[in-house]
């Protein structure tokens, strides 16, 4: 059949038009996941991305710290802004749809996923850098789990079983949505165990100096914090002293110079880098006023807080009046860094632990106290130290956590009240039925 020849010829022609390879098109504005983790340089970029994640507003970009202050306001600060979600945090009337709770949850787990991706590709990293890269990723994963369990779980009870629900501990990167993606909540004890393990490993791996990124002392400082939260005073003291005695950090002599800085100060152990190009400082958005790049002056400082200071306290002088109310000067200017962990906190942790261990805490206490322009004290008490801590670290995101740790109360709510625990975001419980909601929501 003559036609057959033509058909064969045409078939050849037809198939030459097409080639399956032509369907493999890579995007040019994004990079596909298999490329992102295939070289030393790329894995390091993903590690940088984990810092980018944690600098977002839901985590260390500021809203998480803001919310800790609003939840622990107790008449010392006041939310006057129009946004309903922070107002509900302030009023203890949150519901599970709260946007800020969802935002913190999502940003923290995005950071954890970035860190897990780095850890999964650690073998690709140059041998010389593997320890550092791995240590940083572990640090970032630990700090997120720690923040999440403090916010979404009932407080850690020193000496207790801590079988109350914490948050899911995620230790593997997500490459696809499978049954394993529908995780359940780990207990508070399990979360702290994971945090401890990550941080101890990070402490061993990280170098002493690592530019603005997590170093050995950031891991030690965070461990001091974690042990303090758990009431493990000796370990907290030990790790705080690792930082204090390193000689790497020193207190900024003028308290005012700690704030509104473009660069980390000599006191900053770990801080978020913010500029007009990248990073976020939402603390300024809400604590500051339009004149300095704030929103509407949404958070006002109340007299009750100001009354806590000695009139000659340099920290009192940092407050300023603007838009009809008192404002904190810590978060005044736009595009400035957020110190997350600083040396003064280590002194205060060390002092507190010394006092709890019945040691003399005068030195560590006075280092912070005299820096504020106040006269040194002798035989300081635990209450002196706790007040000092409250004043020194005000509006830096510690308040509600200190209330819980010290078993205090806020706005008439006991430290372990359901309302002081954030709801698991409803978006999350709807997407994942395995997540049990907290009591009270």
């Amino acid at each position, binding site marked *: 059949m*003559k036609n057959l020849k033509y058909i064969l010829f*045409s078939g050849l022609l037809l198939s030459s038009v*097409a080639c399956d390879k032509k*369907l493999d*098109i890579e995007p*040019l504005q994004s990079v596909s996941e298999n490329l992102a983790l295939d070289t030393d340089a790329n894995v390091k*970029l993903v590690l940088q991305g984990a*810092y980018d994640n944690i600098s977002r507003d839901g985590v260390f970009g500021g809203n998480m710290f803001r919310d800790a202050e609003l939840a622990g306001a107790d008449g010392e600060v006041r939310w006057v802004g129009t946004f309903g979600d922070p107002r509900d945090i302030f009023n203890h009337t949150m519901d599970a749809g709260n946007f800020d709770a969802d935002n913190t949850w999502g940003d923290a787990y*995005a950071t954890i996923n970035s860190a897990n991706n780095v850890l999964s590709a650690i073998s690709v990293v140059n041998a010389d850098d593997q320890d550092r890269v791995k240590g940083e990723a572990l640090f970032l994963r630990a700090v997120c789990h720690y923040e999440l369990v403090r916010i979404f779980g009932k407080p850690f009870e020193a000496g207790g079983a801590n079988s109350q629900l914490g948050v899911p501990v995620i230790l593997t990167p997500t490459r696809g949505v499978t049954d394993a993606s529908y995780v359940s909540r780990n207990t508070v004890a399990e979360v702290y165990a994971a945090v401890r393990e990550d941080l101890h490993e990070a402490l061993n791996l990280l170098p002493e100096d690592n530019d603005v990124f997590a170093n050995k002392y950031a891991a030690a400082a965070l461990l001091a914090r974690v042990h303090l939260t758990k009431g493990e005073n000796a370990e907290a003291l030990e790790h705080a002293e690792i930082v204090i005695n390193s000689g790497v950090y020193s207190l900024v002599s003028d308290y005012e110079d700690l704030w509104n800085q473009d660069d980390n100060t000599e006191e900053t152990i770990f801080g978020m880098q913010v500029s007009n190009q990248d990073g976020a400082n939402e603390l300024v958005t809400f604590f500051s006023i339009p004149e300095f790049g704030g929103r509407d002056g949404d958070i006002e400082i109340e007299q009750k807080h100001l009354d806590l200071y000695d009139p000659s306290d340099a920290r009192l002088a940092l407050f300023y009046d603007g838009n009809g109310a008192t404002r904190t000067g810590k978060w005044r200017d736009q595009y400035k860094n957020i110190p997350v962990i600083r040396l003064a906190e280590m002194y205060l942790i060390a002092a507190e632990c010394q006092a709890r261990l019945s040691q003399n805490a005068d030195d560590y206490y006075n280092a912070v106290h005299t820096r504020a322009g106040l006269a040194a004290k002798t035989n300081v008490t635990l209450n002196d130290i706790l007040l000092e801590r409250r004043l020194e670290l005000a509006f830096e995101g510690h308040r509600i956590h200190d209330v819980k740790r010290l078993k205090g109360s806020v706005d008439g709510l006991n430290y372990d009240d359901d309302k002081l625990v954030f709801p698991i975001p409803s978006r999350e419980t709807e997407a994942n039925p395995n997540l049990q909601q907290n009591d009270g929501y």
Partner: protein
Amino acid sequence: MKHLFTLTMLCLMMTMSAFAQRAVTGKVTDAAGEALIGASVAVKNTRIGTITDINGAFSVQVADNNAVLTVSYTGYESQEVAVGANTSVTVVLTENQNVINEVVVIGYGKQIRSTLTGNIAKLTNENVKGMPVVSLEQAMQGQAAGVSVESVNGKVGAAARVRVRGVGSINAGTEPLFVVDGIPLSKDARNTYGAAMNPLADLNFNDIESIEVLKDASAKAIYGSRGSNGVVLITTKSGKSGKGQIELDMQYGFSKPTRKREFLNAAEFVELFTEAANNSDDLEGVAYDDPNSWTEFVNGRFRRYSGFNDDWMTGVDKTNWQDEAFQDASIYNAQLSMSGGNEKMRYYISANAGFNDGILVANHLSKDGARMNLDFDATDKLKVGVNFAVSRTDTRTVSDDNAFSTPMQLVALAPITPKRDEDGLLYDRPVTTYYNGLIDVEDATRKVLSSRTLANVYGDYSFTDNLGLRVEAAANLYNVRDEARFGERTDVGNDSKGYGQSVFAGATDYNTNAVLHWNKTFDSHDLGFDLGTEYFKSNNNRTSVEGEQFPTDELKTLASAALIIAGTSSEDNYSFLSYFGRARYNFDRKYLFNASARVDGSSRFGENKRYAFFPAFSAGWVASEEDFLTDNSTLSFLKVRASWGQSGNADIGNFRALGLYAPGSYNGGSNYTPEQIANPDLTWEKSTELDFGIDWGLFNNRISGEIDYYIKNTNDLLQEVPIPATTGFRTQWRNIGELENKGWEFTVNSNNLVGEFKWTTSFNIALNKNKVVALADGQDIIDDGGSRYLNVVKVGSPIGVFYGAEYAGVDPDNGDALWYVHEEGGDPNATTNDYSEANFVELGSPLPDLIGGIGNTFSWKGLTLDVRFQGVSGNQIHRAGDIFMSCNACWFDNQTRDQLDRWQNPGDVTDVPEARLGYSNGDIGRSSRYLSDGSFLRLKNVTLAYDLPANLLRGVRSIRLYATATNLLTFTKYDGWDPEVTTDFLANNTTYGIDFYSAPQPKTIIGGIRVGF
């Protein structure tokens, strides 16, 4: 292709053989005496036949004087001529008026309508030629059953939304695939500034020979993954052999808005707002003359709006701001075309130039282009051709409807405000209530320049009479340049000493295909196969630069910007690779069968689902060919047909299946963060469609029509589904959910009167019911939760259904706005004046139940009158902008005059609540207060034409004088400007029927002359 078809026809005509004895010569012409080249001349009951040559001449051998010649030519009525003793005959063929035997373009081929088993609507050049509209879609409006065309706005060059058989997707594209001479054209708008523009605006629809809309699955499945929303095949003109013909067409006219709304004049403005302030004072128990009263506040505002004087007290109107929003718009278009050829070569060449002013101030579009279509018979077996067109538009756009600077938002300004101050400078805030958009007219330019090159080459080789191969390669180069420059006084440029942006967006699309086609007719069997492959690749890129700090407003380019503030570029690619086949068979043109299949692969989909298979089957039975009907004098044609098939929707954006990292920056360094989670199973949205149709003809097909019923189910809808954020991601693209469209279509074409006075009617109507069948598991509504707009996606309801509080009018006792509570199980008539207590209910659909059109053409001697109506029915429109302009003086926007019906005294029965300045009394967007019936019937087009009689023509072939009016009359109950509307800044798949300061459609009248040489 055409020859192939003619050959097939010829085969059909010829039957068993007879002896040739003597020659008959002759000529075949059309009614005007022009030679018809390639007409087939067959001797009846023999196998003898020939084709006319370049002069329309033929010579054929006949047996004896009883011989009868059957002369046929595509598009003309066949004729039988008894030879008798003649040795020479002249045959004049008349154009075929009946639709049943017309040739329709199908995907990758052509077919006679009577043998079709699918549903294809066809429009010809006559349907669109000379229409004084910008875009092809607008020219098609109302002329094809089940094809909805909606201009989103009356801005010139605005996007036009085309929906074939309803809205077919929630997140992916809903536009049909537009294919021009074999190359798919994207309908994605590429301009940056102003409202989205129609990228097809540059096509010169006067060059179009035919437009076929493939509607059912059997017709469109050959387009596989891109066919789900229908396919619009556009074929441009090709030359015909014979004497060259030149046609020159020029038209000129003007446009006005179809309708204006009535706003308060100065006296009414002062009266209403004073009353509103008094009422607010009464409410608060404040004396009117209290310095802190609303009344004093209003007086201060009146003073301010007057230009800080007391002119407002005089009641004199200072400015009619609505009039300022519009301009005297004129339209000019010129077309020149030449076509002709010899037996080896045919050409069609055209050039066009013209402009359309928009009815909005400073809105203007000019367009020009040229086309050259050439076809060569290289050898007896090989035909090659090239289609080449360049086109360009140059548009001065206006802002989208949401911007203070858009001309329509001028209506918000107070009638007591003068336009200019003593120095002649346009007033701005604080004298004008809001930014004065006229400053944009003087001090801003937003230019969008598009240019397109469309090129297509083909070769068609016939191996044998039955077997051929057609290979096509086409390219579409489309570039859009945006030049925006905002002067120092504009709202964009005023804090930066002027602002400018220059954006270049380019798209380069390539398409190649090869189709092997085989046909054979033996006895009564007619069999055909097509086998083909196609590859499409698209590259899209964009570069932009922004600058500030210009020394003066006169310097327009970024060369003079002291500060370049941003610059970026991006690029995207996607591709399709396809294999397809089709088989058709008919027995005696009575029993018709058709099967087609396409396998598509695309870069857009996941590795595991990269290829998909789209089959279709259809069958038809031409009952009128059966013995029991052949002699029926009334019913001349009857065909029943059924089709089933699947097609896909791949218009979902690129790379959604991939796991991606996005670049970012922290601490001044770059980084990657996980951006999108992979879904290797991500695939096409699939439509499965069933269609039943009846084609009928009465009285020798003088009246003919089609009836179709279809059910189209779209499943595997692409949705962004929430996933646990503990994964590090919040959503994943998945194929989930289902959508249904079902409906009826009716078309009737009728030659009511034939003879000297001719009257033809074409009518189409389509009913479509759209329903969201399923969303993601456990999800029954997609609602952005906003308070201004009503559209939601809700299971069991049409896509975009209006959902909000039902307005219950005004409490006659106190003037409060009321809403129905609609408590489940509660009193259905219970009302509340507290909006937050009102439960949301469905308030109506923005999608019409029924769309249609009717055209009548009357001709007598040289006079032709064409009258065409178009309409939609059953939809609601949300006047979303009325929360500002019809809010019983809630704030200082000038109010529509109907707000004077406000409640004033106890006992007043009205729909307009009491005016209370600064208080919300019924001004809630998310309620039925601002819904109107959107049904309309519109006199879409009227053309009166006069062809000068031949005896008056000197040296020209023809002269036609004509006048055309579009949108001359609109019958509607709609309370806003114009019922053909969806505000441009919200026009997406789920938002329909929103009027937000949207420009009305233009009403256009033109006069023209068409001269043929």
